[in-house]
């Protein structure tokens, strides 16, 4: 188990340069003591929780009075929200109609528990969406931060959720492609990673080697890795098939590593499907890691030859951002927010199928100098666009804009 060390804004200066830090402080100067509340559905696991873990302390250090609350619910609630999540990505919704009532009842329960009176309230993803009914007399500004791809939602679920969305002062999406036509203003915020977190900081090569060996991975042979939750939309079985095609040409290994978020009840079944597809191949390492495995995940990424992200649908794909930050060559599906990060042949390679993924992996294994160059360019793109400090800056910009007389 790893514990995150407290990090201060000044610690980012060597990465970003002093001027960027000074700019954040200057922007926050006009927001001192302003109250902000972030609400999501899980404190651990998944990109949103990870991002809030770092964003909240940064905004606190900048002088904002920020609070982070997590809604609670039973297994039935999270099964429903998982089905919502899949349906918003376009899948069929097969739960009974009563699910909508259960969803609302849990939100009502949370509302009676939570204090919702901040000047700026940011509700993350659909799970806590109906909390907007707790807003008193149009006080404060409320935003819905949607981290998922809404470009082709299941109409039944979207028709149910949309009226709630329309009650907000604005919706924040990760890309214009994910947005819906809404009567409220929409804002674009790229998600971000923290370069100083346990998951992203530089590790000693000997330590990385040690972690690989601990998981039975041979550091002397190519390692292909996909880090993601065991979720069908991440297509772990497709990754195994791509690896099997590559294996005909290269003596490589595959690592599928991830954990289960508290709000994802499907993980176990998907893990079983992956194990079955691996057919007891000793070079396929399927690692179901607990949520406190940030350092292990970091080491697996740093110890990999190529990082894969073969998602079928994707919000933004923070695991891609992490890989690019570590200067790793990435082969990823051209879905969701991935093409915003992986510019084909500039910061990585995009693919559209199992076969395409296998081909691009083979290309990189055959051309290591190109792989290095892609990794370096990917790192620079993340530094400029997708670090946690840029995310903090976007929130500050939004709040400042709203305070304009």
């Amino acid at each position, binding site marked *: 188990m790893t514990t995150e060390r407290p990090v201060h804004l000044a610690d980012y200066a060597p990465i970003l340069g002093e001027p960027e830090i*000074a700019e954040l402080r200057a922007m926050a100067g006009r927001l001192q003591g302003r109250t902000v509340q972030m609400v999501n559905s899980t404190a651990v696991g998944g990109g949103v929780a990870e991002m809030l873990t770092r964003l909240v302390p940064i905004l606190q250090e900048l002088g904002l009075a920020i609070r982070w609350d997590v809604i609670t619910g039973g297994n039935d609630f999270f099964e429903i929200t998982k089905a919502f999540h899949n349906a918003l990505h376009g899948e069929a919704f097969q739960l009974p109609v009563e699910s909508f009532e259960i969803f609302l009842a849990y939100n009502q329960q949370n509302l009676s528990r939570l204090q919702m009176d901040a000047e700026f309230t940011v509700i993350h993803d659909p799970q806590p969406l109906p909390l907007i009914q707790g807003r008193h007399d149009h006080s404060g500004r409320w935003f819905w931060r949607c981290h998922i791809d809404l470009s082709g939602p299941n109409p039944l679920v979207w028709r149910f959720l949309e009226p709630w969305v329309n009650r907000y002062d604005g919706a924040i999406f990760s890309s214009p492609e994910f947005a819906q036509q809404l009567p409220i203003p929409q804002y*674009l915020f790229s998600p971000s990673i923290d370069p100083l977190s346990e998951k992203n900081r530089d590790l000693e090569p000997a330590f990385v080697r040690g972690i690989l060996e601990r998981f039975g991975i041979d550091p002397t042979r190519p390692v292909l890795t996909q880090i993601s939750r065991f979720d069908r939309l991440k297509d772990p079985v497709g990754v195994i098939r791509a690896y099997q095609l590559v294996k005909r040409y290269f003596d490589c290994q595959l690592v599928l590593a991830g954990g289960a978020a508290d709000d994802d009840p499907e993980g176990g079944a998907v893990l079983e499907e992956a194990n079955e597809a691996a057919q007891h191949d000793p070079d396929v390492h399927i690692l179901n890691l607990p949520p406190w495995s940030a350092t292990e995940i970091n080491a697996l990424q740093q110890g990999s030859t190529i990082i894969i992200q073969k998602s079928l649908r994707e919000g933004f794909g923070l695991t891609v951002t992490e890989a690019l930050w570590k200067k790793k060559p990435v082969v990823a599906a051209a879905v969701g927010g991935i093409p915003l990060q992986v510019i084909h042949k500039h910061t990585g390679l995009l693919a559209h199928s199992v076969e395409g993924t296998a081909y691009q992996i083979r290309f990189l294994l055959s051309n290591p100098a190109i792989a290095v160059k892609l990794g370096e360019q990917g790192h620079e793109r993340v530094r400029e666009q997708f670090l946690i400090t840029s995310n903090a800056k976007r929130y500050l910009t939004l709040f400042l804009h709203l305070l*304009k007389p």
Partner: protein
Amino acid sequence: MRLAEQLASLDIRDYLSLAELRSDLRRIVSEYCEHHLHYAGQEAFEPFFFCDAIEVAMPLDLEARNLEEFCEEVKKLSHASFYYHFVASRLRVHLRTNDFSNWLEKSLNLKRLAHRANRIDLYTNTMENARAILVALLSQELTQ
């Protein structure tokens, strides 16, 4: 591809206002459509998503009263601040120049330096490169 190249080669230094720039954009696209009717109705692989942008400008705690101070402060600017003064200002000041060159010329009477700074190619340099070139020009002037 030809149309993309034509649009990419529009240089904001040639314009005094957004209206002029928009007018040229429209003219180029219209002319292309007139001459290539089969492309005009072509379905895009992915739609173009138009976006608006919010600009929040605020004074920084930095100021320069001579060239030496100016050179030092330019090094301390964030990317956003450098962009605001050196790129976005070109259409804001309506003078075919940028905030930096404008100040160098008007306040320090350094016309040649102002002109050389304004010639830094924004289209083939990253922000970081453009700043490095500007700092090199300023340093050169200081050592002369």
